[in-house]
């Protein structure tokens, strides 16, 4: 009797566990790490003394940043002629760099806001670092429109203030929209980032070993104590900030694209620009997130938090947004042909066979279209070297794309007598390289002084964070998990 009644149970159990092994979701945090392991590992990065590699790297990046700042000083004191700009190319590396950096920021906001609204829990392992990347990228971006006006001390003309003749700026100009869009984007990103940081700063405060650290973390943690009456308002604020950031991030690059789309230049004057730019921004931004996170994961041994599954998902987003971008490239050519407009047709002919031909073949065709096709294959998404290679291609390709759009559009427009050619000067080049120094230096300081993974958020994805989780479920889970981890 006993055996007859228990036997079917056992069989059913085995069957369900074998099905479960195939269908079960891979946990987002591997090796059954618990809350305190997460705290130790993430806060430990900040609490340990700075390793030697950090000082060496920081010295190098700070030196590069110094070159960049020198170039800015030289350009401001000498004049905008130190750049290669001249008639007819009045926008070149400066605005290319601006669009490049502002685009990179978009991935951070997509991860922190859009993936939050879509309940993508895997975002919690990467959102903090991606948001920090957003802030630093927007800082680098903001340098360029500020200095490309030539007389930097007149940059206040960008503000909604009347000049000395009592004339106000034109609020119907996309350049004015851009000022509001970028400054709003930066401010909201800072507020969102800091809101997310407060509970983690409280963790660092509670673990602080010296009075100075306790005081500083205590000030910035605002006296946070993790009470549920506080979490209630906090979560509502977080949700609303995510909801506000979602249309905001889509608007920022749309407005950036209006700078071009509302003009009359062939290749610029297109309605496809806003979605094309937004997709390109997310595409390039995810490549930069992986560029930063893969080394950080290896150095700080965060493989249980940023798992192959996370890399795989980001690679898929790169493939998706890369496909949007490739579609836009193809559609631009189609519309140029279909429009019958000779200037449009010539501009696209010039794009692939003109003096900047290799920018298109290498940057847009190889880096942005061909390289991400590797991500159709699982083996490539699971191989960090392949992923890193593709990300580097995309990083470079997105810069080339902006250059092709901007300089490619300007250097040969309607009148052959006004055609020209742009050549970058050493100031152009070093200002751009310098912004990489600023960006990486800021990121190194960030991982040194602040928790680079959102501890209070990543803990929520553990099964034991569920209020309906019980020890019996744990036993069942560990039996099912006995099989090979699908990671």
């Amino acid at each position: 009797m006993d055996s007859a009644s228990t036997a079917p149970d056992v069989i059913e159990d085995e069957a369900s566990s074998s099905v479960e092994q195939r269908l079960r979701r891979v946990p987002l945090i591997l090796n059954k790490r618990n809350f305190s392991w997460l705290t130790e590992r993430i806060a430990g990065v900040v609490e340990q003394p700075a390793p030697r590699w950090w000082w060496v790297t920081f010295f190098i990046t700070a030196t590069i940043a110094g070159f960049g700042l020198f170039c800015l000083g030289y350009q401001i004191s000498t004049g905008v002629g130190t750049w290669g700009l001249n008639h007819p190319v009045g926008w070149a590396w400066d605005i290319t760099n601006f669009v490049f950096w502002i685009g990179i920021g978009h991935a951070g906001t997509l991860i922190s806001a859009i993936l939050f609204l879509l309940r993508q829990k895997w975002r919690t392992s990467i959102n903090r670092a991606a948001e920090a990347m957003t802030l630093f990228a927007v800082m680098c971006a903001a340098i360029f429109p500020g200095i490309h006006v030539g007389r930097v001390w007149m940059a206040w003309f960008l503000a909604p203030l009347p000049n000395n003749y009592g004339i106000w700026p034109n609020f119907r100009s996309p350049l004015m929209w851009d000022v509001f869009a970028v400054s709003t984007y930066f401010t909201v990103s800072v507020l969102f980032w800091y809101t997310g940081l407060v509970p983690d700063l409280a963790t660092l405060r509670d673990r602080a070993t010296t009075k100075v650290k306790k005081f500083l973390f205590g000030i910035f943690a605002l006296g946070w104590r993790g009470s549920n009456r506080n979490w209630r308002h906090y979560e509502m604020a977080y949700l609303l900030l995510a909801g506000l950031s979602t249309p905001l991030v889509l608007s920022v690059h749309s407005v950036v694209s209006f700078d071009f789309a509302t003009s009359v230049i062939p290749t610029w004057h297109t309605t496809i620009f806003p979605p094309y730019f937004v997709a390109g921004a997310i595409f390039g931004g995810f490549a930069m997130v992986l560029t930063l996170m893969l080394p950080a994961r290896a150095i700080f041994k965060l493989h249980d938090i940023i798992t192959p599954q996370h890399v795989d998902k980001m690679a898929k987003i790169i493939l998706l947004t890369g496909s949007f971008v490739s579609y836009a490239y193809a559609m631009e050519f189609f519309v140029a042909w279909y429009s019958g407009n000779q200037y449009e047709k010539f501009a696209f002919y010039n794009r692939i066979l003109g003096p900047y031909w290799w920018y298109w073949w290498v940057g847009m065709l190889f880096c942005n279209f061909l390289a991400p096709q590797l991500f159709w294959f699982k083996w490539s998404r699971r191989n960090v070297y392949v992923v890193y290679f593709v990300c580097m291609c995309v990083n470079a390709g997105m810069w080339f794309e902006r250059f092709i759009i901007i300089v490619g559009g300007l250097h040969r427009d309607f009148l052959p007598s006004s055609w020209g050619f742009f050549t970058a000067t050493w100031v152009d080049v070093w200002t751009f390289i310098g912004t990489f120094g600023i960006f990486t230096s800021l990121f190194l300081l960030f991982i040194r002084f602040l928790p680079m993974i959102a501890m209070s958020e990543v803990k929520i994805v553990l099964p034991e964070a569920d209020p309906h989780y019980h020890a019996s479920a744990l036993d069942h889970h560990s039996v099912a998990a006995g099989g090979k981890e699908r990671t």
Partner: protein
Amino acid sequence: MMRTPSGHKVYAMAAEYPSAAALYEAAKIVRDAGFKRWDVYSPFPIHGMDEAMGLGKSWLSAVVLGGGITGLFTAAVVEFGPSWIIYPLIVHGKPYDWRTVPAFFPIMFELTVLFSAFAAFFAWIIMNGLPRWNHPIFNWERFGRASNDGFFLAIEARDPRFTEMEARELLERSGGEHITIVHED
């Protein structure tokens, strides 16, 4: 004011729980016992805890709506004021009065978002009574783990139903560990 034999003011009777699930169940018990001045502490927000504590929706969203409307209104004033009233600026022979409104939408949108975000940010800080220098709950040495892996529940002495006996009994019954009195100072 309730005091301990050593003369300290009593802030609360507090307990630690082994897991988020245990804290969730305990919160329902304390809620049903009719206490009003009490709180639970966890290193992350626990899903469903607001209902378990008998708390309603956070009305922070109303503040944010107010912020958004203010932002929209500000943008309208900043844009229409100069270009329609103070110094009409005619560009490309296009209208400068109310008919130009589509060109004003981007900035209206941006300022709506900006003011809403500031409202959300300051609202969560102010509605939570933050920033503050200290809090009596930090007087409990075990409480340092609340930001790591500890789950705590505290029934405050100022709750009208609070008696030391009843609070301790309730916390014991709900599975609390390390039950203790937390001092006010």
